[in-house]
Protein backbone atom coordinates (compact mmCIF):
# COMPACT_ATOMS: atom_id res chain seq x y z
CA UNK A 1 0.00 0.00 0.00
CA UNK A 2 1.37 3.42 -1.00
CA UNK A 3 1.26 6.08 1.70
CA UNK A 4 1.84 9.78 1.20
CA UNK A 5 5.26 10.98 2.41
CA UNK A 6 5.27 12.92 5.67
CA UNK A 7 6.24 16.59 5.82
CA UNK A 8 9.60 15.72 7.38
CA UNK A 9 10.38 13.21 4.63
CA UNK A 10 9.49 15.72 1.92
CA UNK A 11 11.56 18.46 3.55
CA UNK A 12 14.65 16.29 3.90
CA UNK A 13 14.38 15.28 0.22
CA UNK A 14 13.95 18.93 -0.84
CA UNK A 15 17.01 19.85 1.21
CA UNK A 16 18.94 17.09 -0.56
CA UNK A 17 18.17 18.78 -3.87
CA UNK A 18 14.87 17.24 -5.02
CA UNK A 19 13.21 20.58 -5.63
CA UNK A 20 10.13 19.04 -7.30
CA UNK A 21 9.15 17.38 -3.99
CA UNK A 22 8.23 20.84 -2.71
CA UNK A 23 5.13 20.67 -4.91
CA UNK A 24 3.70 18.14 -2.39
CA UNK A 25 4.06 20.71 0.38
CA UNK A 26 2.40 23.39 -1.75
CA UNK A 27 -0.47 21.04 -2.67
CA UNK A 28 -0.93 20.00 0.95
CA UNK A 29 -1.02 23.46 2.52
CA UNK A 30 -2.20 25.83 -0.21
CA UNK A 31 -5.85 25.91 0.90
CA UNK A 32 -4.92 26.47 4.57
CA UNK A 33 -2.43 29.20 3.72
CA UNK A 34 -4.74 30.84 1.19
CA UNK A 35 -7.71 30.80 3.61
CA UNK A 36 -5.62 32.37 6.36
CA UNK A 37 -4.27 35.04 4.03
CA UNK A 38 -7.72 35.76 2.64
CA UNK A 39 -9.00 36.36 6.18
CA UNK A 40 -6.51 39.22 6.50
CA UNK A 41 -6.17 40.48 2.95
CA UNK A 42 -9.32 41.68 1.27
CA UNK A 43 -8.90 40.82 -2.40
CA UNK A 44 -8.35 37.35 -3.81
CA UNK A 45 -5.67 38.65 -6.20
CA UNK A 46 -3.64 40.11 -3.34
CA UNK A 47 -4.21 36.99 -1.25
CA UNK A 48 -2.92 34.77 -4.05
CA UNK A 49 0.16 36.94 -4.50
CA UNK A 50 0.89 36.94 -0.75
CA UNK A 51 0.29 33.17 -0.50
CA UNK A 52 2.67 32.55 -3.39
CA UNK A 53 5.27 34.74 -1.74
CA UNK A 54 4.83 32.80 1.52
CA UNK A 55 5.61 29.47 -0.17
CA UNK A 56 8.68 30.96 -1.84
CA UNK A 57 9.89 32.38 1.50
CA UNK A 58 9.24 29.05 3.21
CA UNK A 59 11.23 27.26 0.50
CA UNK A 60 14.18 29.60 0.83
CA UNK A 61 14.22 29.27 4.63
CA UNK A 62 13.51 25.53 4.68
CA UNK A 63 16.92 24.79 6.20
CA UNK A 64 15.86 26.83 9.23
CA UNK A 65 12.97 24.47 9.99
CA UNK A 66 14.39 22.38 12.83
CA UNK A 67 11.39 20.09 13.31
CA UNK A 68 10.83 21.30 16.87
CA UNK A 69 7.21 22.11 15.99
CA UNK A 70 4.81 20.92 13.31
CA UNK A 71 5.71 22.14 9.81
CA UNK A 72 2.28 23.79 9.60
CA UNK A 73 2.95 25.80 12.79
CA UNK A 74 6.26 27.00 11.34
CA UNK A 75 4.59 27.82 8.02
CA UNK A 76 1.79 29.80 9.71
CA UNK A 77 4.35 32.02 11.45
CA UNK A 78 5.57 32.95 7.96
CA UNK A 79 1.93 33.51 6.91
CA UNK A 80 1.42 35.88 9.82
CA UNK A 81 4.59 37.93 9.31
CA UNK A 82 4.04 38.12 5.54
CA UNK A 83 0.45 39.31 5.96
CA UNK A 84 1.48 41.94 8.50
CA UNK A 85 4.23 43.18 6.19
CA UNK A 86 1.81 43.29 3.26
CA UNK A 87 -0.84 45.15 5.27
CA UNK A 88 1.72 47.62 6.59
CA UNK A 89 2.78 48.32 3.06
CA UNK A 90 -0.82 48.85 2.07
CA UNK A 91 -1.30 51.00 5.17
CA UNK A 92 -4.30 49.05 6.30
CA UNK A 93 -5.46 48.78 9.86
CA UNK A 94 -4.03 45.57 11.32
CA UNK A 95 -3.26 45.71 14.99
CA UNK A 96 -6.21 46.48 17.22
CA UNK A 97 -8.09 43.43 18.41
CA UNK A 98 -11.18 45.41 19.30
CA UNK A 99 -11.40 47.48 16.16
CA UNK A 100 -13.99 46.11 13.87
CA UNK A 101 -14.22 46.94 10.24
CA UNK A 102 -16.15 50.03 9.34
CA UNK A 103 -19.86 49.88 8.91
CA UNK A 104 -20.07 50.33 5.16
CA UNK A 105 -17.86 47.29 4.73
CA UNK A 106 -20.28 45.34 6.90
CA UNK A 107 -23.19 46.48 4.80
CA UNK A 108 -21.36 45.50 1.64
CA UNK A 109 -20.59 42.10 3.11
CA UNK A 110 -24.17 41.72 4.18
CA UNK A 111 -25.62 42.51 0.77
CA UNK A 112 -23.11 40.34 -1.05
CA UNK A 113 -23.82 37.58 1.43
CA UNK A 114 -27.56 37.73 0.85
CA UNK A 115 -27.07 37.45 -2.91
CA UNK A 116 -24.68 34.61 -2.33
CA UNK A 117 -26.98 32.81 0.06
CA UNK A 118 -29.87 32.78 -2.39
CA UNK A 119 -27.64 30.79 -4.73
CA UNK A 120 -25.80 28.60 -2.28
CA UNK A 121 -28.07 28.28 0.75
CA UNK A 122 -25.11 26.91 2.60
CA UNK A 123 -24.03 27.15 6.19
CA UNK A 124 -20.44 27.54 5.08
CA UNK A 125 -21.15 30.67 3.07
CA UNK A 126 -22.84 32.24 6.06
CA UNK A 127 -20.00 31.44 8.47
CA UNK A 128 -17.40 32.63 5.98
CA UNK A 129 -19.23 35.93 5.53
CA UNK A 130 -19.61 36.37 9.29
CA UNK A 131 -15.87 35.73 9.77
CA UNK A 132 -15.10 38.37 7.13
CA UNK A 133 -16.96 40.91 9.27
CA UNK A 134 -14.59 40.37 12.19
CA UNK A 135 -11.34 42.22 12.80
CA UNK A 136 -8.20 40.64 11.30
CA UNK A 137 -7.05 39.38 14.69
CA UNK A 138 -10.38 37.69 15.46
CA UNK A 139 -10.64 36.17 11.99
CA UNK A 140 -7.07 34.90 12.20
CA UNK A 141 -7.51 33.26 15.60
CA UNK A 142 -10.76 31.55 14.58
CA UNK A 143 -9.28 30.31 11.31
CA UNK A 144 -6.16 28.99 13.03
CA UNK A 145 -8.26 27.10 15.58
CA UNK A 146 -11.01 25.72 13.37
CA UNK A 147 -9.42 25.44 9.95
CA UNK A 148 -5.67 25.22 10.41
CA UNK A 149 -6.01 22.53 13.10
CA UNK A 150 -3.66 24.23 15.53
CA UNK A 151 -3.74 23.61 19.28
CA UNK A 152 -3.74 26.47 21.78
CA UNK A 153 0.00 25.90 22.40
CA UNK A 154 0.78 25.95 18.69
CA UNK A 155 -1.35 29.04 18.20
CA UNK A 156 0.62 30.65 21.01
CA UNK A 157 3.85 29.99 19.10
CA UNK A 158 2.42 31.45 15.89
CA UNK A 159 0.92 34.52 17.53
CA UNK A 160 3.72 35.02 20.06
CA UNK A 161 1.33 34.70 23.00
CA UNK A 162 0.90 32.53 26.08
CA UNK A 163 -1.63 29.68 25.57
CA UNK A 164 -3.87 31.19 28.26
CA UNK A 165 -3.97 34.51 26.42
CA UNK A 166 -4.79 32.64 23.21
CA UNK A 167 -7.67 30.95 25.03
CA UNK A 168 -9.08 34.30 26.18
CA UNK A 169 -8.69 35.84 22.73
CA UNK A 170 -10.32 32.84 21.10
CA UNK A 171 -13.23 33.05 23.50
CA UNK A 172 -13.72 36.75 22.73
CA UNK A 173 -13.43 36.17 18.98
CA UNK A 174 -16.08 33.43 19.13
CA UNK A 175 -18.28 35.69 21.19
CA UNK A 176 -18.02 38.42 18.58
CA UNK A 177 -18.65 35.96 15.74
CA UNK A 178 -21.74 34.67 17.52
CA UNK A 179 -22.97 38.25 17.95
CA UNK A 180 -22.40 38.96 14.26
CA UNK A 181 -24.33 35.85 13.24
CA UNK A 182 -27.18 36.73 15.59
CA UNK A 183 -27.25 40.33 14.39
CA UNK A 184 -26.91 39.91 10.65
CA UNK A 185 -27.87 36.33 9.88
CA UNK A 186 -30.46 35.38 12.52
CA UNK A 187 -33.08 34.77 9.83
CA UNK A 188 -30.74 32.53 7.83
CA UNK A 189 -29.64 30.64 10.94
CA UNK A 190 -33.25 29.86 11.80
CA UNK A 191 -33.91 28.84 8.19
CA UNK A 192 -30.92 26.53 8.20
CA UNK A 193 -32.00 25.05 11.53
CA UNK A 194 -35.40 24.23 10.08
CA UNK A 195 -33.89 22.57 6.95
Amino acid at each position, binding site marked *: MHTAPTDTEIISR*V*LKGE*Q*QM*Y*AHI*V*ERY*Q*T*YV*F*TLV*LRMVESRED*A*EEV*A*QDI*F*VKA*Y*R*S*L*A*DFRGESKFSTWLYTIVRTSCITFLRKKKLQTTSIDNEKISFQIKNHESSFRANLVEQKS*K*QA*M*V*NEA*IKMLSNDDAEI*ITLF*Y*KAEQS*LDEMGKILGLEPNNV*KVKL*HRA*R*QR*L*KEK*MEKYFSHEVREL*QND
Partner: protein
Amino acid sequence: MKYVNYKTINKLKDGINNSPELYINKIQTEGVYMNEQLNEERLWNFIDGTIDASEKSAIEQLIATNLEWKNKYHELLEVNQLMSSSELESPSMRFTKNVMEDIAKYHVAPATRSYINKNIVGGIGGFFIVMILGFLIYGFSQITWTNISSESILPALNISKKFDFSKFYNPTYVSIFIMINVVLGLMLLDMVLEKKKEKFKQKEF
Protein backbone atom coordinates in the same frame (compact mmCIF):
# COMPACT_ATOMS: atom_id res chain seq x y z
CA MET B 1 -9.57 45.60 42.67
CA LYS B 2 -9.83 48.15 45.50
CA TYR B 3 -10.38 50.86 42.90
CA VAL B 4 -13.22 48.90 41.32
CA ASN B 5 -14.89 48.39 44.68
CA TYR B 6 -14.55 52.06 45.56
CA LYS B 7 -15.98 53.03 42.19
CA THR B 8 -18.84 50.58 42.53
CA ILE B 9 -19.71 51.87 46.01
CA ASN B 10 -19.75 55.46 44.76
CA LYS B 11 -21.90 54.53 41.78
CA LEU B 12 -24.21 52.61 44.07
CA LYS B 13 -24.53 55.63 46.38
CA ASP B 14 -25.32 57.96 43.47
CA GLY B 15 -27.72 55.50 41.97
CA ILE B 16 -29.61 54.93 45.20
CA ASN B 17 -29.90 58.66 45.80
CA ASN B 18 -31.23 59.34 42.30
CA SER B 19 -33.47 56.42 41.54
CA PRO B 20 -33.09 53.43 43.86
CA GLU B 21 -35.43 50.99 42.10
CA LEU B 22 -34.02 51.62 38.64
CA TYR B 23 -30.46 51.36 39.89
CA ILE B 24 -30.95 48.08 41.74
CA ASN B 25 -32.56 46.69 38.62
CA LYS B 26 -29.52 47.79 36.56
CA ILE B 27 -27.08 46.17 38.96
CA GLN B 28 -29.05 42.94 38.87
CA THR B 29 -29.03 42.94 35.04
CA GLU B 30 -25.27 43.62 34.91
CA GLY B 31 -24.67 40.89 37.46
CA VAL B 32 -26.66 38.41 35.41
CA TYR B 33 -24.73 39.46 32.25
CA MET B 34 -21.34 38.96 33.95
CA ASN B 35 -22.47 35.61 35.25
CA GLU B 36 -23.63 34.60 31.78
CA GLN B 37 -20.24 35.56 30.33
CA LEU B 38 -18.46 33.43 32.91
CA ASN B 39 -20.74 30.46 32.31
CA GLU B 40 -20.32 30.80 28.57
CA GLU B 41 -16.55 30.74 28.94
CA ARG B 42 -16.80 27.60 31.04
CA LEU B 43 -19.03 26.00 28.42
CA TRP B 44 -16.62 26.89 25.61
CA ASN B 45 -13.78 25.31 27.58
CA PHE B 46 -15.97 22.24 28.06
CA ILE B 47 -16.67 22.03 24.31
CA ASP B 48 -12.96 22.50 23.48
CA GLY B 49 -11.99 19.89 26.07
CA THR B 50 -9.55 22.22 27.81
CA ILE B 51 -10.78 21.64 31.37
CA ASP B 52 -9.84 19.18 34.09
CA ALA B 53 -11.90 16.13 35.03
CA SER B 54 -13.60 17.66 38.10
CA GLU B 55 -14.73 20.76 36.16
CA LYS B 56 -15.88 18.53 33.32
CA SER B 57 -18.09 16.40 35.57
CA ALA B 58 -19.46 19.55 37.27
CA ILE B 59 -20.47 21.03 33.91
CA GLU B 60 -21.91 17.72 32.72
CA GLN B 61 -24.09 17.67 35.82
CA LEU B 62 -25.18 21.27 35.27
CA ILE B 63 -26.13 20.51 31.65
CA ALA B 64 -28.08 17.45 32.76
CA THR B 65 -29.96 19.15 35.57
CA ASN B 66 -30.27 22.82 34.62
CA LEU B 67 -32.42 23.74 31.62
CA GLU B 68 -30.72 27.12 31.15
CA TRP B 69 -27.28 25.49 30.99
CA LYS B 70 -28.62 22.80 28.68
CA ASN B 71 -30.02 25.35 26.23
CA LYS B 72 -26.86 27.46 26.30
CA TYR B 73 -24.72 24.36 25.76
CA HIS B 74 -26.72 23.34 22.68
CA GLU B 75 -26.59 26.90 21.35
CA LEU B 76 -22.80 27.07 21.66
CA LEU B 77 -22.41 23.57 20.29
CA GLU B 78 -24.31 24.64 17.21
CA VAL B 79 -22.08 27.71 16.76
CA ASN B 80 -19.05 25.47 17.18
CA GLN B 81 -20.31 23.08 14.51
CA LEU B 82 -21.03 25.97 12.18
CA MET B 83 -17.49 27.28 12.60
CA SER B 84 -16.00 23.84 12.03
CA SER B 85 -18.05 23.47 8.88
CA SER B 86 -16.79 26.67 7.26
CA GLU B 87 -15.03 25.86 4.00
CA LEU B 88 -11.39 26.38 3.10
CA GLU B 89 -10.77 28.76 0.24
CA SER B 90 -8.89 27.50 -2.80
CA PRO B 91 -6.43 29.55 -4.84
CA SER B 92 -6.36 29.40 -8.64
CA MET B 93 -5.67 26.12 -10.44
CA ARG B 94 -2.24 27.34 -11.50
CA PHE B 95 -1.14 28.15 -7.96
CA THR B 96 1.24 25.20 -7.41
CA LYS B 97 2.71 25.63 -10.89
CA ASN B 98 3.30 29.35 -10.23
CA VAL B 99 5.07 28.63 -6.95
CA MET B 100 7.24 25.92 -8.52
CA GLU B 101 8.20 28.25 -11.39
CA ASP B 102 9.06 30.92 -8.83
CA ILE B 103 11.23 28.72 -6.62
CA ALA B 104 13.12 27.36 -9.64
CA LYS B 105 15.01 30.68 -9.60
CA TYR B 106 16.19 30.18 -6.04
CA HIS B 107 18.20 27.83 -3.86
CA VAL B 108 17.42 26.91 -0.27
CA ALA B 109 19.34 29.42 1.84
CA PRO B 110 21.82 27.94 4.34
CA ALA B 111 20.44 27.62 7.88
CA THR B 112 20.87 30.78 9.90
CA ARG B 113 22.71 28.90 12.64
CA SER B 114 25.38 27.76 10.15
CA TYR B 115 26.59 31.26 9.28
CA ILE B 116 26.02 33.04 12.57
CA ASN B 117 29.14 32.15 14.53
CA LYS B 118 28.38 32.21 18.25
CA ASN B 119 32.06 32.83 19.07
CA ILE B 120 32.05 36.05 17.04
CA VAL B 121 28.83 37.27 18.68
CA GLY B 122 30.28 36.38 22.10
CA GLY B 123 33.56 38.09 21.22
CA ILE B 124 31.82 41.35 20.26
CA GLY B 125 29.74 41.24 23.45
CA GLY B 126 32.85 40.54 25.53
CA PHE B 127 34.74 43.41 23.92
CA PHE B 128 32.01 45.91 24.83
CA ILE B 129 31.73 44.58 28.40
CA VAL B 130 35.51 44.88 28.88
CA MET B 131 35.41 48.42 27.44
CA ILE B 132 32.59 49.51 29.78
CA LEU B 133 34.28 47.91 32.80
CA GLY B 134 37.59 49.55 31.87
CA PHE B 135 36.01 53.00 31.71
CA LEU B 136 34.18 52.44 34.99
CA ILE B 137 37.34 51.31 36.80
CA TYR B 138 39.34 54.21 35.38
CA GLY B 139 36.56 56.68 36.29
CA PHE B 140 36.30 55.44 39.87
CA SER B 141 40.07 55.47 40.30
CA GLN B 142 40.04 59.20 39.46
CA ILE B 143 37.60 60.05 42.26
CA THR B 144 38.95 61.28 45.58
CA TRP B 145 36.68 60.53 48.49
CA THR B 146 36.79 63.27 51.16
CA ASN B 147 34.54 64.36 54.02
CA ILE B 148 33.36 67.99 53.85
CA SER B 149 32.27 68.10 57.46
CA SER B 150 32.23 65.73 60.38
CA GLU B 151 28.37 65.78 60.45
CA SER B 152 28.00 64.66 56.86
CA ILE B 153 27.31 60.93 56.46
CA LEU B 154 27.90 60.74 52.72
CA PRO B 155 31.38 61.61 51.42
CA ALA B 156 31.57 64.45 48.93
CA LEU B 157 32.66 63.64 45.41
CA ASN B 158 35.62 65.51 44.04
CA ILE B 159 36.58 64.52 40.56
CA SER B 160 40.18 65.38 40.11
CA LYS B 161 41.31 67.25 37.09
CA LYS B 162 43.82 64.60 36.18
CA PHE B 163 41.70 63.48 33.22
CA ASP B 164 41.78 66.37 30.83
CA PHE B 165 39.16 65.83 28.08
CA SER B 166 40.20 68.96 26.22
CA LYS B 167 43.37 67.15 25.16
CA PHE B 168 41.28 64.83 22.97
CA TYR B 169 38.86 67.43 21.61
CA ASN B 170 41.19 69.13 19.21
CA PRO B 171 40.94 69.19 15.38
CA THR B 172 43.76 66.66 14.87
CA TYR B 173 42.15 63.92 16.96
CA VAL B 174 38.68 64.58 15.51
CA SER B 175 40.07 64.33 11.94
CA ILE B 176 41.86 61.07 12.76
CA PHE B 177 38.62 59.66 14.25
CA ILE B 178 36.60 60.60 11.15
CA MET B 179 39.25 59.16 8.83
CA ILE B 180 39.25 55.81 10.65
CA ASN B 181 35.45 55.68 10.42
CA VAL B 182 35.47 56.46 6.70
CA VAL B 183 38.04 53.71 6.05
CA LEU B 184 36.03 51.21 8.11
CA GLY B 185 32.84 52.20 6.26
CA LEU B 186 34.51 51.70 2.86
CA MET B 187 35.84 48.30 3.96
CA LEU B 188 32.32 47.26 5.03
CA LEU B 189 30.82 48.44 1.73
CA ASP B 190 33.49 46.50 -0.17
CA MET B 191 32.66 43.32 1.79
CA VAL B 192 28.93 43.67 1.08
CA LEU B 193 29.47 44.27 -2.64
CA GLU B 194 31.88 41.33 -2.84
CA LYS B 195 29.27 39.01 -1.27
CA LYS B 196 26.58 40.23 -3.66
CA LYS B 197 28.90 39.61 -6.60
CA GLU B 198 29.54 36.04 -5.43
CA LYS B 199 25.81 35.36 -5.02
CA PHE B 200 25.12 36.71 -8.50
CA LYS B 201 27.83 34.46 -9.96
CA GLN B 202 26.36 31.42 -8.16
CA LYS B 203 22.92 32.14 -9.58
CA GLU B 204 24.31 32.44 -13.10
CA PHE B 205 25.86 28.98 -12.95
